[in-house]
């Protein structure tokens, strides 16, 4: 029923407009309230106005959202799995009380600032710093490629301190905090991506997440969002496959529907196989997660495989649509371009390969 609801929402509210949003590089802010009204923001968290759904239910919602557009799913991922999860997992009771319920309702928007221009795959080298000044914290630095940055009410910022990396809740109206949206993207256009500048941002002592030190703080959050991508990517792939199948049945060349050619059938069947396998993989990892048995390696396994295969499916679908495949009249090239970002963010495919490589050989090959 969760799948049906999200699918109906995407069909009614997203699909008729997404082509235009993508073209204009725009995501309407009221989408937050709509998704919040459905209960999809932070849906797998419990308490503080969050419904506490299962990992599988959360995955299904990601799948249906991304069957609409990866940008819409990214919005929900960043809000629920990065910003809200960070506060839920690492925040103080006051931070949870202040932010989680309005974020679940979509009244407040969050973003998650880890990446910097010079530190992407290697966030441990980050330059953004936080130093103590009496009872306060002073934050300085620049974060890059931050989804929802320009529309956020609160930013979860990871910064280097004397005690290692720590996380901070930075309200967007904090003096010295500015967000500059990144224009000219050709991928995830229906998603806001921004640079965040922190210039002598003074925050009270309790802005820092109390317990967590080091990279395990942000990595725990990334693991949640990556899990959603395992499902989401299959949603995008499903749309591409279905579009290609429909098109192939009706497009006539050499007096026959192109679906009647063996080469086309080969493509469609290959797409179907990977779509089926990837969806089963998502379901399997989801059930492991619900059983408390999913380790970060499993999530890397799923993210690496499913995004790679989704991109391959999108590209094959694109060829079946011929010239129509390169226009926004059909969803395929939009998904294809979006998936390029999905391949890179939340750990590039190379980084997930190295994580799995280390898991099976015991030898880290990152440096």
């Amino acid at each position: 029923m969760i799948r049906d609801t999200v699918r109906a929402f995407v069909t009614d509210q997203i699909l008729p407009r997404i082509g235009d949003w993508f073209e204009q590089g725009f995501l309407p802010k009221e989408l937050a309230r709509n998704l919040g009204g459905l209960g999809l923001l932070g849906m797998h968290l419990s308490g503080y106005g969050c419904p506490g759904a299962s990992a599988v239910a959360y995955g299904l919602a990601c799948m249906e959202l991304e069957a609409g557009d990866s940008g819409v799913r990214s919005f929900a991922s960043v809000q629920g799995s990065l910003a809200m999860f960070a506060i839920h997992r690492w925040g103080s009771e006051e931070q949870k009380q202040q932010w989680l319920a309005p974020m679940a309702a979509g009244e407040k928007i969050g973003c998650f600032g880890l990446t910097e221009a010079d530190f992407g795959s290697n966030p441990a080298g980050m330059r953004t710093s936080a130093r103590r000044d009496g009872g306060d914290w002073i934050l300085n630095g620049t974060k890059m490629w931050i989804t929802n940055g320009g529309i956020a009410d609160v930013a979860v910022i990871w910064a280097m301190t004397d005690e290692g990396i720590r996380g901070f809740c930075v309200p967007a109206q904090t003096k010295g905090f500015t967000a500059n949206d990144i224009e000219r993207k050709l991928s995830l256009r229906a998603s806001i991506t921004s640079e965040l500048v922190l210039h002598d941002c003074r925050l009270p002592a309790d802005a820092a997440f109390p317990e967590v030190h080091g990279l395990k703080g942000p990595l725990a959050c990334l693991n949640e969002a990556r899990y959603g991508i395992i499902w989401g990517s299959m949603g995008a792939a499903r749309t591409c496959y279905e579009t290609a199948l429909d098109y192939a049945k009706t497009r006539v060349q050499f007096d026959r529907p192109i679906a009647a050619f063996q080469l086309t059938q080969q493509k469609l069947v290959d797409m179907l196989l990977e779509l089926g396998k990837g969806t089963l993989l998502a379901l399997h990892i989801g059930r492991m997660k619900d059983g408390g048995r999913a380790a970060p390696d499993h999530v890397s396994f799923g993210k690496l495989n499913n995004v790679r295969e989704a991109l391959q499916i999108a590209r094959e679908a694109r060829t079946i649509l011929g010239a129509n495949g390169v226009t926004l009249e059909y969803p395929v090239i939009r998904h294809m371009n979006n998936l390029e970002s999905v391949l890179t963010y939340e750990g590039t495919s190379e980084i997930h390969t190295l994580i799995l490589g280390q898991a099976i050989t015991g030898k880290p090959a990152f440096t």
Partner: protein
Amino acid sequence: MKIVVTVKLVPDTNAVKRIDPATKRLVRTGVETVINPFDEYAIEAALALKEKLGGDTTVTIFTMAAESGKEVVRKALAMGADDAVMLSDAGLEGSDVWASAYAMAQALKKIGFDLIICGALAEDGNTGGLPNALSEYLGVPALTNARHIEISDAKVKAQRETDSGYQVVTGALPMLMTVTMAVGEPRYASLKGIMGAKRKTTAVMALSELGLEKAVGTGGAKTEVVEIAARPARGKARVEEAADGPAGAKIIFDFLKERKLL
């Protein structure tokens, strides 16, 4: 106030439907069952009233359907209804509008109600006759094709949609009402609603609980399907030629007006 919404479970609107030539009845197996789309508007109207009236207003879903439809009824609960009652009995098979209405009326008397809201039409049976028969058996007035419903002090005021506009109609509870799509788009079931629906009750009633005095099922049907035929093939399309844009627009305008679509 107790609002009961009658909801019919129908084969998926988009599915290809088949009539069994032997029984002359719609084949209901092998196709997904959904809430009759018009009834989703009835649910929306009831939930909107509940929100507006607050207090002890409750919304009960009532359906006459096989017990296998319980999962489908859950969607109505997920949208926000408080509970549901199903009248499920093999003895109902073959009931026509009158027999269905009679059985449903007895069940609704037992459930109790201040207001019954029905959809305007069932997508499969398509008679639109059931609500009126129901109001007759229940002895309550029927306010049909309502939109903009206001209720205070057990008095109802609504706009009754007609071909050319609307009438303002008033009446007193208890009553039965059918609603049009103008009552507002049915809400989505939220995640909280979906999860909460698992804890709501769907009671199942059998005919034996109703103490019926008339026959229902095939024996109680006043109508008999004598023959079924496929819809005649669509006639040739009308082709109009227009000299220019404005003339074309005029032709389209006249056509839509003639079909009462404008």
